[in-house]
């Protein structure tokens, strides 16, 4: 129920978004995945009616972002990049303030935020500025939800938050989705893509691909191997010099390697590495993840 067509915007001659089109269905958990500076924030701000696109049009639940901005604002819950809370007000005061702004009360919509709020309730008298990152995130989410929005827009809610808090946060989003709220979320963390129904991969103001995470992965055309040996630092350099190397990237405890030739037979590579003095060599075919796909798309974009 969010439709954007041919949206472009530029700041000081730099194109922040170039001819972006996409649509999000009602009740979907939709992710915009891309590094900082890709244009995610601009895009979300256009959809929340905070800024105007230079060209193109967009609508949210059939409401035009330019003409009907007042009505969009009534049905949108928005959590900007920085947790925008009043640092000097307590947890409870923040919540009741934002409730009042939307003409409601904490009591009225308590059910919706109960699961989230209950985790920060013990600290309800503490000023928001003194909460930890994970708790601020929960409070900001509660504030964005307090008026029972139809659509929730979250701009990098997990940036700078530790892995565990991030996991918890995504569980909360899943639950909200099950309550029927349409959710748009942006993130620089590629691994979070797999938690969305569909994702748009964004880089330098352009959408590289839009699909379900599985769909994106199934489009990955190269053969991919994970490789390790006892000297990972040297391994990367050596594979880089191998004559059949299309790409080689660090990936956790392995290197992800794909051959130019697309050959699944790795004997030549193994022999090459043994000659270079590597021991305990593991080479096995592996499934690509979103990050592999993203890097592949980035490279074909640049090349």
């Amino acid at each position, binding site marked *: 129920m969010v439709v954007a067509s041919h949206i472009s915007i530029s700041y000081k001659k730099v194109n922040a978004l170039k001819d972006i089109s996409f649509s999000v269905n009602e009740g979907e958990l939709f992710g915009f995945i891309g590094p900082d500076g890709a244009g995610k924030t601009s895009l979300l*701000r256009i959809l*929340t*009616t*905070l*800024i*105007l696109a230079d060209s193109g049009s967009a609508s949210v639940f059939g409401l035009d972002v330019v003409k009907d*901005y*007042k009505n969009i*604002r*009534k049905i*949108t819950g*928005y*959590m*900007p*990049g*920085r*947790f*925008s*809370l*009043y*640092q*000097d*007000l307590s947890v409870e*005061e923040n919540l*009741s*303030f*934002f409730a*009042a*702004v*939307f*003409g409601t009360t904490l009591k009225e919509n308590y059910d919706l935020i109960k699961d989230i709020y209950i985790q920060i309730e013990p600290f309800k008298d503490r000023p928001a500025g003194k909460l930890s990152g994970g708790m601020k995130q929960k409070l900001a989410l509660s*504030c*964005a939800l307090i008026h029972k929005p139809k659509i929730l827009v979250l701009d990098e809610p997990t940036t700078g938050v530790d892995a565990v808090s991030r996991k918890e946060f995504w569980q909360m989003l899943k639950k909200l989705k099950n309550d029927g709220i349409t959710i748009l979320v942006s993130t620089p963390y590629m691994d979070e893509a797999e938690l969305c129904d569909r994702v748009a991969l964004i880089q330098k103001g352009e959408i590289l691909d839009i699909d379900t995470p599985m769909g994106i992965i199934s489009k990955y055309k190269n053969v991919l191997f994970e490789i390790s040996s006892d000297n990972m630092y040297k391994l990367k350099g050596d594979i880089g010099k191998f004559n059949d190397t299309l790409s080689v990237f660090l990936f956790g405890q392995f290197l992800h390697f794909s051959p130019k030739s697309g050959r699944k037979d790795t004997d030549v590579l193994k022999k090459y590495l043994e000659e270079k003095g590597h021991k305990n060599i593991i080479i096995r075919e592996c499934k690509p993840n979103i990050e592999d796909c993203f890097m592949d798309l980035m490279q074909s974009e640049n090349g």
Partner: protein
Amino acid sequence: MKTFINFVKKEFRHIFRDVRSMVILFGMPIAQILIFGYVVTNEVKDAKIAVLDLSKDEMTVEITNKLTSSGYFLLVDNFKSEDEIELAFRKGEIQEAIIFEPGFAKKFVKDGKAEVRIINDASDANTANMLANYTSAIIMNYSFAESGVNGASGQIIAQTRMQFNQDLKGAYMFVPGTMALILMLISAMMTSISITREKEMGTMEVLLVSPLRPVQIIVGKVIPYFLLSFVNAISILLLGFFVFGLPVNGPLALLLAESMLFITMALSLGIFISTIAKSMQVAMFISMFSLLLPTMLLSGFIFPIENMPQILQWVCHAIPPKYFIVIIKNIMLKGTGFEYVWFETLVLFGFTVFFIVMSVFKFKTRLE
């Protein structure tokens, strides 16, 4: 409406929780009034003078007595020639010398005109100016009284520029100026900072995305500062009255109404500043240079406008506090009513409308 009340409540919380805001709001007015009233006072006391009396008649003696008994001056020497004057000035023994022309009384009665020269140590220009004014005021007083008694229309030639502050008290000059300064500062600077703070914290984004209308946001921001500014205006008046014995000669209701007008003007200026400033720092900077300094320097608060170069005088006319200072001086000291301040009131009103229109024009329902 409930939404709105909640907004105002939140705003008060911000103010009351921030120690700096509280100090600026309540500490500064008191400190300023006391500092300006006592320390930076331009009151004169025991200024050292010498007299060169080339006439030595009963009139010159009487004038000299009047001067010394006023409490402002201390007669340290009687000179015999003009040469001594310069020497005394160089040594720093005196701040002012007074020369009566020969045959002073005779000329006064016969020609209706006598001359007295007042020489000041102008290395301290302000004090010199003030001493000269005091002296000539006392001499003028004497001259009026004398012509009344004798029936003769005599005149003593000396410069004078003392009016409506007959007791020549410093606080009388400073209270109106300080009031203008403080109201300007609190209303304009604090509102512009509090609005830009929301921009900086990112909370403005959330407010804009809410159904709250921009007018509500602005008015909600402004109301607490309006009330606090008004409380401040009253406390300055009370302080002026009880500490410095400064009366309100004119109608009090008019004075308060004018203060409200001025506060509204300053608030709309503050909103205007916040629409052009992106950060607190910029807002602070603009406030400092466009409000604080001009209010101190160009409003006639410390330096008389008449003494400024023509170009600067034009600039002065574009500064709202100047009009407010004229208004309160008129009402408090001269005791005049609305008929004498309608023009200044109109100008302030014009400024208010101008800033509001500009703000509405510039305020965005979206981000930049």
